[in-house]
């Protein structure tokens, strides 16, 4: 979920005829479902694509702390406040694992952070939407984490070892978060008319952006085939999106709130829900930086980084001085 439209740097899927001996051996390992580890030989395009995908995923965790963090100080009960703080903290932890996993490919966390802050690196489009009410915190847990899990469970089997192992750990926590989000929605749906309206409004605003999290439709998805051959993308965008819709519609029914899609209907022949057309113009506008919160999200990250500069410098200066004193004492 958290990585959309990841470039592979190749125009067409590499065939055996394009490949040298190392690359053929590499592809054979992948085809045999043998994990690639950081010290193994890998094509440069594979390494670069993974760095893009994993850093985008990590940035999404970090930027994703902001829309939910927006409600920590206003959470309606102490228990909900504690759960939300712990959840946002978990996201910071996911960011850390993913940056660490990406670092095994030879890129530093500082370099990845610089790319995020300069606007060069992307993060998931979903976090450029605002959290306007408490119900949005429920909707993010239910829908956004739900979509994330849908995307990340297959990645637990992806070809790159450190990424796959990070995903196993992250998925466990995400499913816990999703249940907490759904629990918020349940309490609102069973609450006062005002609370129920709040829940419906949140669903109206988050449903379509959550469908966009899976990225463009397969026909438009130019880089997916190579990523699939490398097994860093195991199911197509449209397959994942369909699974997500099929899973989520009954959950909305259980809440007694209505999906904002008049075309949504069960299709008995396909055994799936049909759903309406996604507004891809909106998606591309958000990806290009024109979502409601792109500017605010990036500005908040930049400010946190800049405000923290003197703190990081002081910690380094102190560590250096302490090391020098220890060395002097040992001499």
């Amino acid at each position: 979920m958290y990585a959309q439209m990841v470039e592979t740097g190749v125009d067409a899927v590499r065939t055996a005829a394009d490949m040298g001996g190392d690359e053929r051996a590499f592809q054979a390992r992948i085809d045999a479902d043998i994990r690639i580890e950081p010290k193994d030989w890998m094509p440069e395009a594979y390494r670069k694509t993974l760095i893009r995908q994993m850093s985008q995923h990590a940035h999404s965790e970090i930027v994703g702390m902001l829309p939910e963090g927006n409600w920590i100080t206003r959470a309606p009960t102490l228990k909900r406040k504690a759960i939300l703080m712990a959840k946002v903290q978990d996201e910071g932890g996911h960011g850390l694992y993913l940056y660490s996993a990406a670092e095994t490919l030879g890129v530093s966390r500082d370099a990845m952070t610089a790319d995020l802050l300069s606007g060069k690196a992307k993060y998931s489009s979903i976090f450029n939407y605002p959290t306007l009410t408490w119900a949005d915190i429920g909707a993010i847990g239910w829908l956004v984490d739900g979509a994330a899990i849908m995307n990340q469970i297959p990645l637990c089997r992806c070809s790159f070892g450190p990424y796959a192992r990070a995903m196993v750990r992250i998925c466990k926590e995400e499913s816990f978060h999703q249940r907490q989000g759904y629990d918020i929605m349940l309490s609102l749906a069973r609450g006062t008319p005002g609370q129920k309206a709040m829940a419906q409004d949140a669903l109206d605003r988050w449903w379509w952006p959550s469908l966009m999290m899976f990225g463009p439709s397969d026909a438009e998805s130019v880089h997916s085939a190579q990523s699939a051959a490398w097994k860093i993308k195991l199911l197509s965008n449209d397959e994942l999106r369909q699974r997500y819709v099929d899973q989520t519609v009954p959950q909305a029914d259980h809440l007694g709130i209505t999906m904002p899609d008049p075309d949504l209907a069960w299709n008995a022949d396909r055994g799936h829900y049909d759903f309406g057309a996604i507004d891809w113009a909106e998606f591309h506008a958000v990806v290009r930086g024109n979502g409601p919160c792109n500017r605010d999200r990036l500005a908040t990250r930049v400010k946190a980084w800049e405000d923290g500069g003197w703190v990081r410098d002081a910690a380094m200066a102190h560590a250096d001085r302490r090391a020098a004193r220890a060395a002097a004492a040992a001499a």
Partner: protein
Amino acid sequence: MDDDPILFQYLLRLGDSPLILAQQLGAWVGKGPALEEDIALTNVGLDLLGQARLWLTCAGEVEARLGGAGRSEDELAFTRDGGEFRNLLLVEQPNGSYADTMARQFLFDTWHLLALRALLPSRDARVAAIADKAAREVAYHVERSGDWVVRLGDGTPESHARMQAAIDGLWMYTGEMFVPDAVELALIDAGVAADVRALEAPWRRHVDAVLAEATLSVPQNGWMQGGGGRGGKQGVHTEHLGHLLAEMQFLQRAYPDAQW
């Protein structure tokens, strides 16, 4: 010991300081100077929030046994006005920069651990049990915030100046921590409350040692706010608390009939 109206007041004092400080730390989430710090500071906030919930729940139970409203932790947190809060003035001071936040944390944590340990022999078993759980968590908080005072004090010229200014600015809010009023005195006599008068010397020893290691000076101005029974423990606050509560209490105030 029997439940007593002053015990209710005392429990609010124990719960409100961690509650307000947890609320302040919650505002840092996602905005820390480094990812590891963000995570660690949130841990401290979560500990304090958990402690506040135990104290406030206990306060509500005492209130019920006294024939009062028996308010829940949420009713106590979200529906009292500023003048009914009993937290220390120190914890309601603004987050400011990381130096301000860490100085506030260090001055409070050092007192907090001493106060909790002084509650371990309390004749009220509930008080002793909560203090025991909290003290284990706060022992780590004291280490962490002291470490940051040293790093920033003995860091760069800029961080040194910021940390010194932070300590200087907050110093006047530390006096009330050691001055008991009638509520505390009665409970000290009954063997329930911590005798905060005895905490000042060990607090100063630890603070002086950390400031010395941090190459910082102990503030010279000895004027303390909140004296004469007109401080945070008596519900006389600084302007900051009202704004903090307005944000924290918004949903419960806007939807008073709702369950969340």
